[in-house]
């Protein structure tokens, strides 16, 4: 009996290995904000959210399968939360039953198992009741199959049979064990036997040939004898104690699995209600097959930003279908990074079967999502920084495959523009030829313009919009790269409109260049 709510035909594996760039993704896309919203302070929900979001699916069927289940969940959220609670309760109660120091004795194992089984039976009955009452409200394949299985496997007759075992395993009529003789004529192959039904007709009983029965009693004072007797009994019930304890483990793992799989949807429900509070739209994305080059959306917003500032934010509309390189330039703090993050988040959310933060969203699935962001922390040493960036790039190169998506955020800017763009250009060209879709946020006009100028069909150039008065709209529009990044605007905003200051910083830069040139001539 399986829940199969994450995959049509297999269990959700909480132990599965996450992609090697897990930490970079969490950091660059600020995934902890997403997980936190899904978890709503529950550690287990957090863990499941993390596992599910980071282990992307790339078959459209399974994505569809989860989307449908999630739609059912949104419709019947209280029923789903109720089922989740039953699973949680079953797992908690099992832990409470004392195992103690007697786990060396089959007798002790058996009696604990009986107690645990009783709890499980009660929980299974509850689950069955929910199923009986609400199954008809669910439409998704996943849930209808789940309820059908419960209905079939857990009928009244089955519960009677289990109850019967629970009664008989208390052995009110003694323990019946069969045995054979092995080496040294010692008893072996002890097997617990179910006594024949006593309801034999009296005629049969009278005419049946009475087989000989011998017996003896061990005196109460015979301590070693009693010990030997109880060992003999233990040998007899060893296998059945094992069977029952293992059965409990199986039922427990059923509940564990049910809990883990539902935890993903409960997380989605939590996120859903958070977004509803700030009136942000959601939609179920339309995934396209691997390699199809689709990326078009309306109202795509950065979910993490919306969650942290707790209000509705501007979304973007872009059609980048048939594009394999998206270059994003434009004003500082114009929403480039936010845009890039929203691309990454939507990709991950789509590929785990969730809704996405957009009015509509269509993209091809990718075989892996990678991020290469400029790291802010180590600005001190430029050369060391480029080293570090290239070493991260080399790690990515070790792991990336065709049909992946790679998000660059101001990468390779730790050196002068010309070198940086040459490095970037070479990397981009190689990756593109390997069918890797790239989103590249850059300040480098040289680099951006270089690609734009070639007028390649598969390249799209986006720019953070800036109105003529210098005001940022945080909108990303399709346009050619501009020479400046409006650093001056921001400078002015902070320092006031002091143009002298701005030109000072430029001249300081020139001075630096001059010094370099002087050094060169000395050499």
């Amino acid at each position, binding site marked *: 009996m399986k829940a199969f709510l994450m995959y049509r035909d297999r269990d959700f594996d909480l132990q599965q290995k996450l992609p090697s760039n897990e930490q970079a993704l969490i950091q660059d896309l600020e995934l902890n904000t997403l997980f936190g919203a899904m978890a709503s302070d529950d550690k287990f929900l957090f863990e499941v959210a993390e596992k599910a979001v980071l282990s992307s699916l790339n078959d459209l069927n399974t994505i569809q399968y989860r989307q449908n289940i999630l739609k059912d969940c949104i419709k019947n959220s209280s029923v789903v939360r109720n089922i989740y609670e039953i699973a949680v309760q079953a797992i908690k109660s099992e832990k409470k039953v004392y195992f103690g120091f007697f786990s060396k004795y089959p007798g002790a194992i058996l009696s604990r198992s009986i107690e645990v089984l009783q709890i499980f039976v009660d929980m299974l009955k509850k689950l069955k009741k929910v199923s009986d009452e609400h199954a008809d409200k669910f439409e998704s394949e996943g849930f209808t199959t789940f309820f059908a299985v419960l209905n079939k496997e857990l009928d009244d007759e089955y519960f009677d049979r289990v109850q019967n075992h629970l009664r008989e395993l208390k052995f009110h009529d003694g323990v019946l064990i069969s045995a054979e003789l092995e080496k040294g004529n010692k008893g072996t192959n002890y097997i617990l036997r179910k006594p024949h039904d006593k309801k034999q007709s009296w005629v049969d009983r009278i005419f049946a040939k009475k087989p000989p029965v011998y017996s003896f009693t061990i005196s109460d004072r015979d301590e070693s004898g009693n010990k030997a007797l109880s060992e003999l009994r233990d040998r007899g019930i060893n296998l059945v104690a094992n069977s029952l304890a*293992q059965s409990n483990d199986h039922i427990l793992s059923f509940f564990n699995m049910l809990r883990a799989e539902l935890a993903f949807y409960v997380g989605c429900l939590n996120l859903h209600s958070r977004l509803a509070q700030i009136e942000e739209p959601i939609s179920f994305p339309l995934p396209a097959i691997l390699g199809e080059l689709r990326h078009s959306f309306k109202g795509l917003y950065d979910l993490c930003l919306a969650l942290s500032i707790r209000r509705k934010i501007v979304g973007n509309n872009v059609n980048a279908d048939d594009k394999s390189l998206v270059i994003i330039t434009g004003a500082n703090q114009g929403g480039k990074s936010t845009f890039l993050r929203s691309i990454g988040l939507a990709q991950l959310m789509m590929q785990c079967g969730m809704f996405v933060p957009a009015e509509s969203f269509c993209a091809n699935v990718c075989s892996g999502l990678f991020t290469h962001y400029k790291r802010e922390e180590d600005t001190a040493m430029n050369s060391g920084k480029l080293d570090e960036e290239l070493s991260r790039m080399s790690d990515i190169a070790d792991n990336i495959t065709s049909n992946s998506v790679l998000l660059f955020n101001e990468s390779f800017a730790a050196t002068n523009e010309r070198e940086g763009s040459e490095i970037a250009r070479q990397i981009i060209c190689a990756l593109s030829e390997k069918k890797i879709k790239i989103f590249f946020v850059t300040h480098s006009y040289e680099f951006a313009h270089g690609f734009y100028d070639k007028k390649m069909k598969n390249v799209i150039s986006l720019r953070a919009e800036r109105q003529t008065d210098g005001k940022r709209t945080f909108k990303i529009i399709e346009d050619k790269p501009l020479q400046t990044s409006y650093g001056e605007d921001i400078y002015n905003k902070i320092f006031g409109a002091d143009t002298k200051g701005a030109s000072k910083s430029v001249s300081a830069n020139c001075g630096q260049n001059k010094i370099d040139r002087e050094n060169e001539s000395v050499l």
Partner: protein
Amino acid sequence: MTFHNILFEKAEDSIKGETLEAPAFFVDLNLDQIIDAITADKQEYNLKPFFYTSLSNIDTIKYRHEIMQDLENQALFENIKLFAQKMRTMREYLARLDKLYYKYLKERWFLDAVEIYCDSVNNLLHDLSLADLKSRGLSAFREYLTNYTNSDRFILLQTEMKKITADLSEIKYCLLIKGNHIKVRKYESEIDYSADVEETFRKFKQGAVKDYRVKFHESPEMNHVEAKVLDLVAQLYPDTFFNLDNFCTKNENYSDKTIGIFDREIQFYLAYLEFIAVIKQTGLKFCYPQIVTASKEVYDYEGFDLALAYKFSAKKSSVVCNDFYLKDKERAFVVTGPNQGGKTTFARTFGQLHYLAGIGCPVPGRKAQLFLYDKLFTHFEKEENIKNLRGKLEDDLVRIYDILNRATPDSIIIMNEIFTSTTLADAIFLSKKIMEKITQLDLLCVWVTFVEELVSSGDKTVSMISMVVPQNPAIRTYKIQRRPADGLAYALSIAEKYRLTYNHLKERIKS
């Protein structure tokens, strides 16, 4: 041909009394290490006396070679090992009987011992029949086994054992335990309750789960409750247990003496072959030596020190092999050269080869011809520092005198660095004197020495030198080569190292 035993073809050649004392030269040649290693896992067979006794006729050596060669068939080897294992289990069962108390318990262990015995004898005969035996020894033993297994005595033993065993294995009874009361009756096809429980919960089965089965302590003994149950089971099946009783009293001395002796003596071969198999894995070779008595032309190609090879095999590495030969009138190797170069190892190898050949074993090397000696003497420098130098010299001379007195032209003498504690002039003088005696005796000799003057002692001596890497004399090759000891090889290589050779100097010294 009637079978006598597997170590000696004829009764008159057999060891008269088994000795537990190793020959005197064992320690010097490191043969003690070899034999200890060979017999380490076979203590119960007490094999050392076989390894301590040299053979005096070529025919017995050949008898053993044939058997060794038959046993190099891996299948036969494994089968005989299996036979030995079973016989060991049987002995364990029998040894247990004395310690046990309950009658039916003892009787069953006895029955089981007989079962193993019959089994192992039958299997052994079967395996020997399948094998393409070339050796006189194993062929004769196979014939013996055929006759034995066809004897009325064995057939009756086996038939009765089988009948009782089958009857016992069919016994199936039930215990009903309630409180401190036990009922015992025959089994009446009640269903397996565990299977029923398992079936009930099968639908929940997920992955692998913990095994909750408790392991009980199993001893060959029985407690009084088990014994009482067994008594009642015996009452349920009275005929079977009556037969068991009878069988045990009737067959107390069931096992065959000759087979028992074979079981021990065949271990001589198994032990040696197992030992050399380990060493063969490091790429070293063994061969069956040609044994000569009339001629003293001996040789061995790619030989090595077996004790050293054994030590190295633990580290999965192998030792350096060396060749030697003596032809025509040559009788003595005089080994000189740098220390730690493998001289002593060479001397030991020579001794080991002859000893191992003399007990009928294959020896280290690709191809060998060795001499059937009558006595082997060693004189190795003793480690201890004796303060009184004159005392030590005297002691050395007394020992050598004794050796020379007992030696015959068919003996072998191996000497290692004697006279180190005296003056060079003395050492040269004494060495020459002793070499004269040895030459007169015309016996085989290896003499490791720093006295290079010995080399030119006539056409009976052959010079062997331990070699170094010319570029770096500090590295020993452990190769011992047959070449004149001109005292130059070593010096030249040191010159190389310091670039002081003729050529080097000509280059270095600018005109």
